[in-house]
């Protein structure tokens, strides 16, 4: 029973939030506002999809903001833009995503073979990618002139932009991967009990590299869609993605301790967080307090989700 409740808890929380905000504000339940919620949720959702596989394996990846910014800058200077002469058209998309994959895989390989915690490796990677984004930045804001990219965010179909549809597509694929592939199934198992898997002859390291690479690819995709949305390449574009994505995963039930949750759970977490943001602004909370709120939510969510694991002898660093 309590297990059921724990797995349904986030969904219930989401429903309660939606009902509360619908009841107390005139605007929340309107179609344009719900569309706005989905638009706002799209990019954090993409990041959370990638992060979910890493977290399920009980690792962590802090490099989101750097990789997304780097992807955004790289995209803006390789497609038609107002500053550089380079224009490789839509080939920029596979290029940028490829760079994301390589960065993620590099983090994993360093962590595995130099035997360093992923927390530190990805902290270093965060810095390094922020630096590379700044190095690539051509000095003036490059306007993205490639309309096939900017239209992703501008053209609406049934009230939603292609960014949202692309995100939904990614989520569906990720859920299928999680449920039906060896990689997906083993990711959660790695988080739960890695020694048994190693003893069973499972190539754990391959799955780890795959998870970080996938995460890097997702961050890069997020960077591309950010570019579509803001229309420029900006070294700061990824800033602010780390918090909500980690908070969302944990809120939904993809715990930092690994072995729990999944893509669907993380997506519920994203919706909770975005609904909370949106709803609180609707009822008049200062948007400047947003990061304070998210910070508190992270602490409460992690504490709540691991409350039953508390033991005196446990070492928490």
């Amino acid at each position: 029973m309590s297990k059921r409740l724990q797995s349904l808890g986030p969904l219930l929380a989401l429903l309660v939030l939606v009902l509360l905000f619908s009841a107390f504000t005139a605007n929340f339940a309107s179609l344009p506002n719900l569309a706005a919620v989905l638009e706002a949720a799209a990019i954090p959702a993409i990041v959370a999809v990638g992060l979910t596989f890493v977290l399920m394996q009980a690792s962590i990846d802090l490099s989101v903001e750097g990789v997304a910014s780097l992807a955004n800058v790289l995209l803006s200077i390789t497609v038609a833009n107002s500053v550089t002469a380079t224009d490789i058209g839509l080939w920029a998309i596979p290029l940028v995503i490829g760079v994301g994959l390589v960065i993620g895989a590099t983090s994993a390989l360093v962590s595995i073979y130099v035997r360093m915690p992923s927390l530190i490796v990805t902290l270093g990677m965060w810095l390094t990618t922020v630096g590379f984004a700044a190095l690539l930045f051509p000095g003036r804001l490059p306007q993205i002139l490639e309309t096939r990219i900017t239209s992703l965010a501008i053209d609406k179909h049934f009230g939603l932009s292609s960014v949202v549809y692309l995100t939904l597509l990614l989520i569906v694929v990720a859920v299928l991967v999680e449920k039906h592939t060896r990689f997906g199934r083993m990711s959660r198992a790695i988080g739960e009990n890695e020694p048994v898997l190693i003893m069973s002859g499972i190539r754990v390291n391959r799955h780890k590299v795959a998870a970080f690479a996938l995460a890097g690819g997702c961050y890069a995709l997020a960077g591309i869609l950010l570019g579509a949305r803001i229309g420029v390449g900006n070294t700061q574009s990824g800033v602010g993605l780390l918090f909500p994505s980690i908070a969302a995963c944990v809120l939904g039930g993809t715990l930092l301790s690994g072995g729990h949750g999944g893509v669907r759970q993380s997506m519920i977490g994203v919706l909770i967080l975005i609904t909370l943001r949106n709803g609180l602004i609707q009822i008049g909370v200062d948007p400047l307090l947003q990061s304070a709120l998210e910070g508190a939510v992270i602490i409460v969510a992690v504490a709540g989700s691991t409350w039953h694991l508390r033991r005196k002898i446990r070492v928490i660093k």
Partner: protein
Amino acid sequence: MTTAFSLEGISKRFGEVTALDNVSLSLVEGEVLGLIGQNGSGKSTIMKVMAGLHRPDSGLIKVGGRVVQLRSPLEAASAGIGMVHQEQSLITSLTVAENLFLDKPATSTRMGVYKWGDLRDRAKHQLDKVELDIDPFTPVSELSFGQRQMVELAKVLSLEELVQGHLVILFDEPTAVLNPPEIDALFSQIRRIKHRSSVVFVSHRMDEILTISDRVYVMSDGRNVATRDKANVNVDELYELMVGKQRVNRQDRKPREAHLGDQPALTLKNVTVPGEIEGISLTLAPGEILGLIGVQGSGAETILRTIFGMADEWTGNIEYFGKPLTIDSPAEAVHKGIGYLPAERKTEGMIRNTSVSENVAITYGWQHGRGGGMISRAKERGLIEGWVKKLAIKTPSISHRIDNLSGGNQQKVVLSKWLFGKTLKVLMLDHPTRGLDPGARSDLFAVIRELADQGLAILLVADTLDEVLNMADSIIVMKDGRVSARIEGVQAAPPSEEELVKAMV
């Protein structure tokens, strides 16, 4: 009656300790071999050698008469040897079907994508073998412990499609987490699988061994001391064999005379820690050495940790010099004058990468300081050197790293941290001699006796029978979390070793 599997002259050492000493074992097709022995007799080491978890230092392993190398559990599996683990090896977030084939080469996947239909059919087939009627796609987390044990068994039995010939199935204390009906179910499965496999069955419980085994194989001090057919087993003889070298030489025994304080230092009434100990009552007087003994998991260590404020939840009463002891952390226990030497020296006892002197001074160093939280290393130095000399700790200097000392000397350093203060009244020792060589053990014994003579109340969870018989004034024998025997006046009239073993298993 062909020999399915044999070990010939296997030896295995861990550092200073010889775990297996020239052990041989042969397993006939279709038999159940019951393996018994005390803690540290080498029975789990021998199981691990057979399962490919430990590589022997010397000796041969033969499967069907052919010499094999078992370098990993996977290699053991391909030789037809599988282990049903004590700590279960199932991944609870995966389904039963996935777990069954986790360590098998055929994964029912194409390009990394599962073919669920195929997996279901294969899993169903395996579950039928152990008569387990559950959906193969049930997550393991939703199964009872008994069902999980059956899945473990099915996982091992699924080797038969992979391996030509006979299987060898190792059960490492499979009954520890099961209730009686589940144990019966397990036994009927073991009897069913005998026609196509040989079984090695380890248990702490003598009655179980006698129920299920065709032969009983007794280990003591890393050796095989006897093998008996079920037909002519004499239970008393088995107890006697299990005691082995731990028999105390009655002539050389120097009984100590305890001078007990009047008021008990510790009184436990009905102390229960859910799932670990139940209804424990005992008293301990100043100057007394109370020996606790029991097989692994019998709960003796839990008693010490509960007194020391480390239990997460417990019920009952603990009185300390007549007053209720209400503490929630070791810090409070230490403040009241209780000390605890943990069994896990490397992970819980010593502070690695730190000098001998810091290890000694960590708890009570401040008592020799200048006040106001300032410590005086100069004053500590003299005192620590005194203890190093008194306990004969072999270290180049007290600023030497503790990591570089031998196990016995490390243990003495950890012990001295409790002797360093001025306020200790009760000292609890959890397997203090584990992993020590005989010389270091007798040194440590002498120190413990002297401490008791000085009026310290000592609670000793012993590794071996001779330890309690030589040291303790009273003995409490633990079995499955409860007290199974109490013996007073041990020094004057020692009980027989067999009596203790009988209460333990």
